[in-house]
């Protein structure tokens, strides 16, 4: 676009570039107004509320007062001189949720990356019926999260579940396990479902990276008698590493905010409750708007760091100028 025909530029009263910039402003305005209204404003309000004492009675009539940092952390001197700490940052329930979120994110993304890589390698090979396999792999991705949670909830059912039946028949377990109810297995159940549902997405992103590796590279390496193991480490992996990095951070962003799967598959389980879930419960179920907003604001801050990391590490090509 750098070279507009000179004739056009001369004909226009104001410069063409100016005219286009003005049009661009009006094209962008509706979207920006909309985003400010539905995203920026509510975000600022949520952060504001995290410094208030808003509760179910006061949130909608504005009768709440400022609370400063009290929702985050507050030192209250007792009569005997000792100090009682209160607030989200000293709440063991919150730290349990943080720990669950971290645990879930690291484990699910690690498993999904590896399984995604395995599936992508298969899909990248040429064999008869590849289209069919790719279609099959897409099925878990197409199923809504709530539906997958219910489907797996049924399969993992303690009394009638098919998973317990399989494991019993294989003599891997002696008694049926209440997967979603037991605190020590609830996280495993959540991981199984999340990995099942999200590996296809990971595989597709990695496959896109794999397809950029020229096929004759493998052929050449084979003719030279280089061991395929070496080819993997020296050729394939370095070439797909950028694709994997971007996919990993992207998934991490998604995993850190997980809500629906955990809320539906393992309701009220201390072993799986995450930052999003505990914040939701405070806001929607307990009417503790101030506390819930403080928690959601902390989560926002954490994810903001990862978004910056994503844009930086992924070297996201923002303006489309210059190659990736």
């Amino acid at each position, binding site marked *: 676009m750098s070279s507009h025909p000179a004739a056009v530029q001369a004909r226009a009263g104001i410069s063409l570039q100016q005219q286009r910039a003005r049009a661009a402003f009006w094209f962008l305005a509706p979207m920006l107004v909309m985003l400010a209204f539905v995203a920026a404003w509510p*975000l600022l309000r949520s952060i504001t509320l995290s410094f208030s004492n808003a509760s179910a009675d006061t949130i909608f009539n504005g009768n709440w007062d400022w609370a400063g940092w009290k929702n985050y952390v507050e030192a209250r001197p007792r009569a005997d001189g000792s100090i009682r700490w209160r607030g989200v940052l000293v709440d063991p329930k919150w730290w349990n949720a943080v720990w669950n979120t971290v645990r879930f994110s690291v484990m699910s993304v690690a498993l999904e990356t*590896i399984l995604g890589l395995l599936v992508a390698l298969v899909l990248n090979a040429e064999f008869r019926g590849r289209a069919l396999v790719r279609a099959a792999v897409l099925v878990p991705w*197409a199923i809504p999260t709530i539906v997958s949670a219910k489907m797996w909830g049924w399969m993992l059912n303690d009394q*009638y579940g098919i998973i317990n039946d399989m494991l019993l028949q294989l003599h891997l377990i002696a008694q049926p396990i209440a997967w979603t109810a037991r605190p020590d297995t609830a996280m495993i159940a959540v991981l199984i479902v999340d990995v099942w549902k999200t590996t296809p997405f990971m595989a597709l992103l990695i496959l896109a990276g794999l397809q950029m590796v020229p096929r004759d590279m493998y052929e050449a390496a084979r003719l030279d008698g280089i061991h395929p193991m070496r080819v993997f480490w020296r050729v394939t992996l370095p070439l797909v590493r950028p694709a994997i990095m971007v996919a990993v951070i992207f998934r991490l962003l998604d995993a850190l905010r997980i809500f629906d799967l955990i809320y539906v598959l393992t309701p009220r389980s201390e072993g799986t409750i995450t930052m999003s879930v505990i914040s939701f419960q405070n*806001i929607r179920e307990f009417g503790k708007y101030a506390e819930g907003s403080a928690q*959601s*604001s902390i989560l926002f801050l954490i994810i903001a760091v990862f978004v910056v990391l994503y844009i930086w590490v992924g070297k996201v090509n923002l*303006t489309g100028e210059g190659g990736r």
Partner: protein
Amino acid sequence: MTVIVASFWVLVKFVAFVAVTTAIAVPLYHTVLVATEGGGSGRRLSAFLWRAGFWAIVVVIVLVSVFPFYYAILSSLESGTALFRVNYLPEAFDLSNYRQVLTTSSFLHSIWNSVLIATITVVAALTLAVTASYALARVRFRGRGLLLMTILAVSMFPQIAVLSGLYELVNWLGLYNTPWALVLSYTIFTLPFTVWVLTTFMRDLPVEIEEAAIVDGASPWVIITRVFMPLLWPALVTTGLLAFIGAWNEFLFALTFTISENQRTVPVAIALFSGASVQEIPWGPIMAASVVVTLPLIALVLVFQRKIVAGLTAGGVKG
């Protein structure tokens, strides 16, 4: 403190375990694939074993992917005691669960709500996004990079971060427990997403077409509506479909901003499906409802397979 250290240690061990397993398994597995593709060099027997290994992996991938949905269909066709007997192959063809679900008026309401909300959201997002992405992809102006970065960042927002503020806004506008609350809130993720993906698509359109239009004296508005729109149809379909799926599946906002059964969307209806008593979960109808709302999605995704994969990789977007 010791608890934190101990639990952190568990995580470290897990990561180490995964790393070591990967370091061994993945290259080995890659060897299998490359050897298989090479048409099986070397002795016949080892070539056969490689092939068998490869097909075993393929079979496992397909089975694991498809089995849960197959089992949901199988369960949805059983009722009474048959449902609670585990069977791997279809034994019954009992449509009573479907009859029950499709005659429940609140569930029919939910389907209608979901269709309505997702359609309006997508149309609104695409309308706003087409002009915006033209400006972002085709016009140079100061702050463009920053603007794109902001849009990308918004699309990665945790929804929970805006929940209490949005709750307040929705109540203030008097939209609580109406479909419009959801149309409004879904714009948060559909709009940045459509803008981002359409911008990448629009960037790839040839410059010459636009230059020719400029020479002919076409204004930017004419360029978008007359010149680019016909070329953008495939991109619009893909983006719209992905945004539709996103809106169709959304759960957090739908759960927060609706209260009565008739205002629920499909995911909320399925999540809160209750039986005659609290103890008794109606698995049969839940499975039937799941199949009803998922089959169209799977059909769409399989029909538009190639386009969807292109859209996902172009945007590097939410799965």
